[in-house]
């Protein structure tokens, strides 16, 4: 028996696997038992209803995709009344992702969403900061910290800060949000990308730029998770390109306490179950009693020489 539980601050999860915000929905409950997940992270909620980006919203690559969805949202009341109740049947803690155009609006939104059934708040700080020329909060350590401080004042729920990877020094942003009181950091959101429809001399996405996600982003996001885990003491949740247990193990070993699975849910709707079962099988095979022991288990390379088997 492997002890699969992990602690994210005050919260104990039954296993380290959860969806990335915006990559699951009620549809998933029609394919699998959401009770098996470590947590349910819901799609980002904004203060006002939004329609999202004009189509086309996606471009597909060999090993990942570029999407410009733009956080369509029906607002916080709809979330509390219609979305949250759908997850009440499960013992799984619900993490509510929020985003807003100003620090104040972040605070008000989190207060409004700190209702029964919300176990933690994840701050999606990849959105444009209207107080700073629309530059994403997450691209600035100080702006990120301000959001977290306001959230901590506005809610008694644990606050997770979801970083953007589009930065020079992600460890600095992580240190800033940790100092501001974040209970955990999620590393990271999609990488800003674009594509051209060359036949028609136009952007391939209605929004021109979009978020690059999926397996091909893993090497870069993994490096960031490693840098973040070395920079802060709070738990780190890896999010980027996890498709199978092996990928999740990379994140755990570089120092993450848990992982989020995103784009691959669209391809294999039960991919998260495969990740959970695979991590457990790995622990059993290696004689590891608790998955927690994998966090930061990467050691420096030995000059390890194996004889060439014939």
């Amino acid at each position, binding site marked *: 028996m492997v002890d699969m539980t992990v602690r994210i601050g005050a919260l104990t999860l039954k296993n380290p696997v959860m969806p990335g915000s*915006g*990559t*699951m*929905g*009620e*549809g*998933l409950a*029609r*394919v*699998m038992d959401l009770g098996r997940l470590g947590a349910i992270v819901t799609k980002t909620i904004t203060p006002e209803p939004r*329609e*999202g980006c004009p*189509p*086309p*919203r*996606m471009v*597909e*690559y*060999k*090993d*990942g*995709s570029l*999407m410009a*969805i733009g956080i*369509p949202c029906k607002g916080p009341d709809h979330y509390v009344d219609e979305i949250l109740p759908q997850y009440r049947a499960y013992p799984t803690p619900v993490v509510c992702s929020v985003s807003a155009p100003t620090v104040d609006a972040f605070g008000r939104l989190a207060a409004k969403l700190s209702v029964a059934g919300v176990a933690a708040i994840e701050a999606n700080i990849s959105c444009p900061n209207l107080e700073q020329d629309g530059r994403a909060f997450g691209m600035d350590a100080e702006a990120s910290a301000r959001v977290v401080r306001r959230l901590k004042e506005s809610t008694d729920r644990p606050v997770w800060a979801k970083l953007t990877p589009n930065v020079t020094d992600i460890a600095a942003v992580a240190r800033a949000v940790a100092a501001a009181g974040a209970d955990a950091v999620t590393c990271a959101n999609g990488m800003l990308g674009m594509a051209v429809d060359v036949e028609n001399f136009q952007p391939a996405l209605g929004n021109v730029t979009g978020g690059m996600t*999926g397996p091909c982003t893993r090497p870069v996001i993994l490096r960031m998770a490693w840098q973040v885990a070395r920079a802060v003491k709070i738990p780190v949740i890896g999010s980027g390109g996890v498709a*199978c247990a092996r990928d999740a193990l990379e994140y755990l070993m570089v120092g993450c306490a848990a992982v989020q699975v995103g*784009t691959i*849910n*669209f*391809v*294999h*709707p*039960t*991919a998260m*179950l*495969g990740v959970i079962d695979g991590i457990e099988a790995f622990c059993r095979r290696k004689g590891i009693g608790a998955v927690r022991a994998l966090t930061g288990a990467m050691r420096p390379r030995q000059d390890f020489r194996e004889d060439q088997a014939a």
Partner: protein
Amino acid sequence: MSTALSSAAAGADRADGFPLAEAVCPVIAHEWVNDAYKHLVIEAGHGAARARPGQFFHLLCPVIGENAPFFRRPMSLYRIDAARGRLEFLYKVVGRGTTTLATLVPGDALNVFGPLGRGFDFAGRARHIVQVARGVGLATLAPVAEAAARCGIRTTAILSARSRAHLMSVASLRAAGADVLTVTDEEGTSEVGAVERLVRRAIAERGGDFLVTCGSNRLLQMLQRVGRELGVAGEVALEQHMGCGNGMCFACVREFRTAQGGVAYRRVCWEGPVFDLQEAVSW
């Protein structure tokens, strides 16, 4: 049956008790029906027991060389054979995914996810369906007549295609009791005005009281006009590029008219692919 192959895909076949399943299904038959379309039959007990006309499955097309479809490909049901636990698809080979899909031979395994989306909703609303299909719409509308007949609803099917070779499902529609009218570009009979006359006649002379369409924007516009004018309700099956096919990613939105007179985005995979005829914004 399909479980025997489940090791081919991580996470496949965990369906037990859930309405949707990712299942690895044996290919039973796979033939060209003309120069552009293939007819695919798979064994999929779980799906065949649940699927309804207008719904679709999300197919994981193989990765072969440069053709590496990352996401699944949506295909509507051409035939649901609940008795034998089989699903049939009729699809046009157009790009990366359909090219590799076309390489499958009987005995190969295909990973499918479904049934997905909202199908046609004519039971209790229609007594005589007039369906107008063109292109891939021929596949999507094919199962309507049979399902309609089961609820005691008659069908007049107007099929439009480039040439007679591209008219598909005529025999199966007739077998399901539909009156089938065909028009083609080749014969010069498929022009929108001509089709409109056939539609008006089916409504006026045969009691057509529900319009169903798929596959052509110009035919959709014509039916919206006729439906509005004559007060005949109807539905349209739409397409959009998809990520998840299951309402989660919001990639597949299109514009729709709202009750308030504005337009809003709706997900083709979740609120559709079948929508109210008048709410669809044609383009």
